């Protein structure tokens, strides 16, 4: 990087690593777009990538905490399958008999059940790891086998479908979006929140008499944030609803269907869930004691103990959180497919770990960001979708992803060594 460019970046105060990852993502997009002759960077494709990224990205935010505390969770794919199958059976075989078929409360009960299931199972694993001191690798490897087997027992291996229509909205699709108006409102709200946060942070720093960035730098930051958010919304609001679905969607949104009525997708609900999870997890990691203790423990477990941090309980909480997020992902993933078979979530643990690691989470512990993991998941999904659309066959796709994983971590190690952290 040129010196002036370096200075610009440090003035604006963006983490160079974030810039690097966004750069990698943009390069991938452009390459695939050129390769496919302009069929990649379309609202339709970006909408699909955003939806397909959600499930893995939601879990990847939790995996950041797990890896930062020097653990690993190999069980999330199987746990996702087990939870997905259980709540599918709940809403198809159990709840209709109790509250009635198609009752409005089914999706709520099923979703809450999914999160609670993940929370309890995750906490149990965390307890074995923290208090019985069995290594996380072993505990969650056991979990991987146990939950995949348990999933089979739920329905003796049978596929469960169709899921509750309201529940299915949580997976995206033509109806599972905010719609245009709400998407704009969502974008405006997010932009407003970003601006307020930037200004408040500046004022707080100035109040303590710290050196603050030049005003123009804050301006650039605000412009970038707002531009990114509104650009994202605009793109997804430019993806028209397919002909066959127009009547259904217009009715669902309470609009009168005419031939000239413009109907677009907007931001998908699973993407909204992902963004909310990302914001919440970022706050947890940067602004709460719990988050601070996670990083301290990862950096030096002994120092954390000596500072009075209960690192065993911390382990339980970290795995419980991972489990709850897996529950959310189970809802998103099963809702997207509309049915659950025994393969749901297979190999997801590796995608989730890869997303966190590509996003800069160090397996040695102590380092990792939530946004990094989310971008890591987007990079993985882009690679997969891109290769599929240029006709790379599945075995080669896996080889490329594996190769990229190793190279990404190597680049990260070189970068760390250079900046000395």
């Amino acid at each position, binding site marked *: 990087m040129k010196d002036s460019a370096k200075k610009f970046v440090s003035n604006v105060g963006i983490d160079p690593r974030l810039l690097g990852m966004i750069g990698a993502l943009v390069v991938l997009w452009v390459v695939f777009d050129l390769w496919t002759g302009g069929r990649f960077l379309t609202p339709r494709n970006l909408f699909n990538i955003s939806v397909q990224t959600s499930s893995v990205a939601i879990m990847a935010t939790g995996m950041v905490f797990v890896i930062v505390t020097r653990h690993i969770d190999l069980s999330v794919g199987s746990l996702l399958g087990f939870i997905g199958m259980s709540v599918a059976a709940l809403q198809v075989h159990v709840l209709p008999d109790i509250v009635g078929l198609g009752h409005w409360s089914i999706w709520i009960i099923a979703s809450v059940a999914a999160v609670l299931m993940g929370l309890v199972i995750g906490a149990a694993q965390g307890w074995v790891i923290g208090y019985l001191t069995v290594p996380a690798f072993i505990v969650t490897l056991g979990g991987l086998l146990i939950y995949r087997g348990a999933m089979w027992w739920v329905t003796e291996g049978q596929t469960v479908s169709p899921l509750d229509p309201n529940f299915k909205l949580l997976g995206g699709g033509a109806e599972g979006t905010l719609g245009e108006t709400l998407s704009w409102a969502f974008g405006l709200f997010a932009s407003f929140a970003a601006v307020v946060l930037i200004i408040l942070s500046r004022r707080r*720093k100035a109040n303590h008499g710290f050196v603050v960035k030049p005003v123009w730098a804050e301006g650039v930051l605000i412009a970038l944030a707002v531009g990114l958010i509104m650009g994202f919304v605009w793109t997804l609001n430019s993806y028209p609803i397919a002909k066959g679905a127009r009547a259904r969607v217009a009715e669902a949104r309470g609009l009168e269907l005419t031939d000239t009525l413009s109907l677009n997708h907007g931001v998908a609900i699973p993407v909204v869930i992902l963004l909310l999870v990302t914001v919440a997890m970022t706050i947890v990691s940067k602004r709460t004691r719990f988050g601070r203790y996670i990083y301290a423990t990862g950096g*030096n477990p002994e120092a954390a103990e*000596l500072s009075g941090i209960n690192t065993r309980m911390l382990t339980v909480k970290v795995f419980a959180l991972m489990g709850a997020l897996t529950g959310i992902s189970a809802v998103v993933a099963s809702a997207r497919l509309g049915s659950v078979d025994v393969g749901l979530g297979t190999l997801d643990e590796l995608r989730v770990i890869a997303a966190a690691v590509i996003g800069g989470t160090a397996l040695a512990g102590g380092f990792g960001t939530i946004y990094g993991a989310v971008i890591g998941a987007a990079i993985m999904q882009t690679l997969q979708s891109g290769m599929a659309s240029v006709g790379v066959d599945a075995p080669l796709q896996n080889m490329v992803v594996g190769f990229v994983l190793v190279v990404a971590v190597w680049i990260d190690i070189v970068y760390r060594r250079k900046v000395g952290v």
Partner: protein
Amino acid sequence: MTTKTPLVEMKNISIAFGGVKAVDDVSVDLHEGEVVGLLGHNGAGKSTLIKILSGAYHANAGEIYISGEKAHIANPRDARNYNIETIYQTLALADNLDAASNLFLGREIVTNVGTVDDDAMEAETRKIMGRLNPNFEKFSSPVSALSGGQRQSVAIARAVYFNAKILIMDEPTAALGPHETQMVSELIQQLKSEGIGIFLISHDIHDVMDLCDRASVMKNGKLVGTVNVDEVTDDDLLGMIILGKHPHENKEDA
């Protein structure tokens, strides 16, 4: 000796790791405004003894009294509640966090909505570092990016900031240059004059002779003896450390 109740009494403390008796029936005490040196070879058990006081280890036997009352120190949090602060030999810093996060680790300043207030913590850190180490500037770097001396000053700041009554310093000047060592000596004298009791573990006999009121010497986990520094020579102390020989048994036994 003073007749006042000691600030700290550690009585007949023993601890073993596997078969090794790291500390074997050791008793030491400390009064307000007093500096007690702990001396002994590497492996004598000094760090282990003070880690029992700071809540890092549990003694297998023995009792601790704080201001005359039996204390129950099961973990580092308990020790902090007795206003015991410790500068560990290993410094016990989370290398990936910045100075302020380390200084306040476990005792963060929070805003009224309960989130950690990094700006307030940095402001406080700037204040105390301004007193302890005016050259310190790297407030936003992780402490892994700091020099040995700077790291040590972060660890010292952490122990001093929270109004300690009892301060444990395990080789606090090990990574410091002569100038910084001098500053630590002045700090010890100032804290002593404020009535704080200090256990000072050091290899440097001159430091101990200059700064301490009394010195307790350990060898192979056992206490050789405790002497008033005024009443002994450097050679007496060396004899205790190396040979485990008490210079004048009768004086301290009473």
